[in-house]
């Protein structure tokens, strides 16, 4: 009987909830966030994002600071998408002692903006000599890299043209353009792929025109000893667009970061809001109800908490303990509960004077009963609303704490993504895809809870709207 009662009331609530449009929007948003948390491993491209967000080597094969892939839809000057070529034509030659392994990769370049880099990757042992050459559609052949690499008893080979072929590309340029032009560029800042994938003309530096067509990248490894070997070669071409939300200047995939941040945002927001608002509401109600010197004492204690700045406390705490998300949530709860006290106290002072409180008292109700059965339920709509507003507040506070470097370095949060963006001057350099998604997510999550709160308020207390 009890169970069916609850079922019934949930059914009725839902029936009414359906009528409130904003509530439905809030619920849908919340469900989307919940979906993102539950199915996180399925929807993010990098499963280990949670553990490796600050591990730069994990992200090194991604492009740097590139917009999302879908931006190609809105422009006629397409950008090269990131890709991996792992089906080379491998030929092996034995020349006396020398074993020559050639892998030829074919890249069909059909966009306006070139890929950011060409990265050769393989497994290897010993110390083979590696020569990387590129043959362009206009039959220009450039040797990009020619060096022995020492791999010891087994190691990954990673050769990035962006960092290793600046000299080669500079030489290639010097053959094509007049000296006066050449002086305009700094060899150390030159981006090799800009010129490798452009039409070779005298105007090379000023007006680059993309040279579309088939590029052949030939990687030759010359091995002297028996133990030297190169296997599983492949080439990574970090494009000039990437994934759903692009990358940041640490080459991280922002989509993975933002999705991985959902659960932390929900945790920080919900836990902090629920705990601190609950404490605040109880404190305010009790203070107002007791009145007299007890009220004054409680208000003085409250003022101590209000006037203590949280930031210095957190800095000291971070010096003593390792900054962790749990200490941060605890400290936020310990100081944020003050936010709702004053309002709740003034509301409770009003409710306290209501006749039904007096009636209850005249009926012999205890103080606890009056506080919990009569006063607190009347403040629930307010609590909902202020919880909804505390959620974005807590998320943003976590962000500001991260900005100071006091955040939990072991997790990914929207705040940390934003503060990284801020530190890298993302807004000034127009990297909107770094700032907008986490910012929008914070706003949407706040909105979701605010909408749900207001809708529930509307339904639960149609007659109490003026209170």
């Amino acid at each position: 009987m009890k169970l069916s009662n609850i079922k019934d009331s949930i059914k009725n609530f839902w029936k009414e909830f359906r009528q409130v449009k904003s509530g439905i929007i809030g619920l849908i948003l919340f469900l989307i966030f919940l979906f993102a948390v539950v199915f996180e491993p399925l929807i993010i491209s990098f499963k280990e994002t949670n553990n490796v967000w600050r591990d730069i080597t994990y992200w090194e094969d991604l492009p740097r600071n590139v917009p999302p892939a879908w931006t190609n839809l809105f422009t006629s000057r397409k950008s090269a998408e990131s890709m991996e070529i792992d089906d080379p034509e491998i030929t092996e030659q034995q020349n006396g002692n020398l074993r020559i392994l050639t892998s030829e990769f074919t890249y069909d370049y059909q966009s306006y903006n070139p890929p950011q880099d060409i990265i050769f990757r393989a497994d290897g042992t010993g110390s083979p000599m590696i020569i990387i050459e590129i043959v362009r559609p206009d039959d220009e052949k450039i040797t990009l890299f020619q060096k022995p690499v020492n791999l010891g008893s087994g190691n990954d080979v990673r050769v990035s043209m962006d960092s290793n072929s600046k000299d080669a590309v500079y030489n290639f340029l010097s053959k094509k353009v007049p000296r006066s032009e050449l002086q305009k560029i700094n060899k150390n800042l030159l981006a090799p792929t800009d010129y490798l994938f452009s039409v070779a003309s005298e105007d090379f530096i000023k007006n680059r025109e993309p040279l579309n067509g088939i590029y052949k990248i030939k990687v030759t490894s010359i091995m002297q000893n028996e133990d030297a070997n190169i296997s599983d070669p492949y080439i990574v071409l970090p494009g000039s667009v990437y994934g759903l939300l692009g990358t940041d200047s640490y080459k991280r995939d922002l989509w993975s970061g933002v999705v991985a941040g959902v659960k932390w945002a929900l945790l920080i927001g919900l836990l902090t809001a629920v705990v601190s608002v609950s404490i605040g509401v109880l404190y305010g109600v009790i203070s107002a109800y007791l009145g007299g010197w007890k009220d004054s004492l409680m208000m003085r204690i409250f003022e101590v908490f209000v006037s203590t700045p949280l930031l210095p406390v957190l800095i000291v705490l971070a010096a003593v303990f390792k900054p962790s998300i749990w200490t941060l949530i605890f400290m936020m709860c310990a100081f944020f509960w003050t936010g709702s006290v004053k309002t709740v106290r003034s509301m409770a002072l009003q409710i306290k004077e209501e006749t039904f409180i007096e009636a209850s008292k005249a009926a012999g109700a205890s103080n606890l009963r009056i506080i919990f059965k009569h006063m607190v339920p009347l403040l629930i709509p307010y609590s909902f609303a202020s919880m909804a507003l505390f959620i974005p507040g807590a998320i943003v506070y976590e962000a500001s704490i991260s900005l100071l470097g006091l955040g939990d370095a072991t997790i990914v949060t929207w705040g940390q993504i934003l503060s990284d963006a801020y530190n890298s001057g993302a807004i000034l350099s127009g990297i909107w895809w770094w700032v907008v998604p986490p910012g929008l997510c914070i706003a949407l999550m706040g909105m979701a809870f605010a909408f749900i709160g207001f809708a529930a308020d509307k339904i639960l207390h149609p007659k109490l709207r003026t209170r």
Partner: protein
Amino acid sequence: MQNDKKRDVIFKIENLQKWFPVKRTMSEVFSGEKRFVKAVDGVSFDIMRGEIFGLVGESGCGKTTTGKLIMKLLDPTGGKIIFNGKDSTHLDKNDLKDYRERVQMIFQDPYASMNPRFRIKDVLEEVLIIHKKGNDKKERLEMVEKALSEVRLQPPHEYMERFPHMLSGGQRQRAATARSLILNPLMIVADEPVSMIDLSTRAEILHMMKTVQRELGLTYLYITHDLSTARYFTDKIAVMYLGKIVEMGTPDEVIDNPLHPYTQALISAVCEPIAGKVNRIKEVPIKGEVPNATDIPEGCRFHTRCPYTGEVCEKGEDPLIQDDGGEHFVACFKYKNLK
């Protein structure tokens, strides 16, 4: 006086006082001067078992404060409340709970006196839970049903699930009455129970209250500003002015033969729906406003407004309440000359 049962005093109020301190100016603080609003300033009366005692007066005269003092919602500044032969002026927690089980209150505004978030059954059940009546919810709900049918809210189960705002004013007041009846109290303090209700339902509610009172042998303290319902409803009327009782007696005596000039003025101010007189505004013999309760006039507290005031009224003490015979008491120096 003839009936022995009637002589059984259930409530004895002796010189009850309630002074509210007023915020003082700096100079008053330094001179140690204290000022009070003397809301109730020495009220004494007896309520017999099974009696309906009416407390009448204009707003601000202290009648509601008296009711709240009796309900122990306020602590008296002075005086005594003796309930059922026991001094109940100051009670500890357990005694207070017992006291509240036996003395219940009906409030003026039946909507405000019920938590708007509670269903009618929750409102009534709460009282039972507080006083630990009934073993389980089922038993308590049966008691709720019984109480609702006692106040003629029929059929009770139809009203139990409703919220207060879903009832009409009269129904709400019935439910509020049911709440005060559910514990089988000895005494009910009804603070203007019908003043917020339509005239058309007023008589009905009062009739219901009276029927219930007879059936259960209850005692009422009926607080009102409305002389006409007081006459209809009560067995005894006390008229209050500025925190003191100025006249007390049976309703017929007090209303047909008022002795105190204030009572006379009050009665003459009652509107009568008589054809032809509708547009005539009644002339009230007294003038001015009620004096501030912080600054009660010396002598008889009514002399500033009394049409018969004389030298004797303006100095010294308040007139004591005296028996005019036939259970008719009056506090006036000159009432004999006024007859």
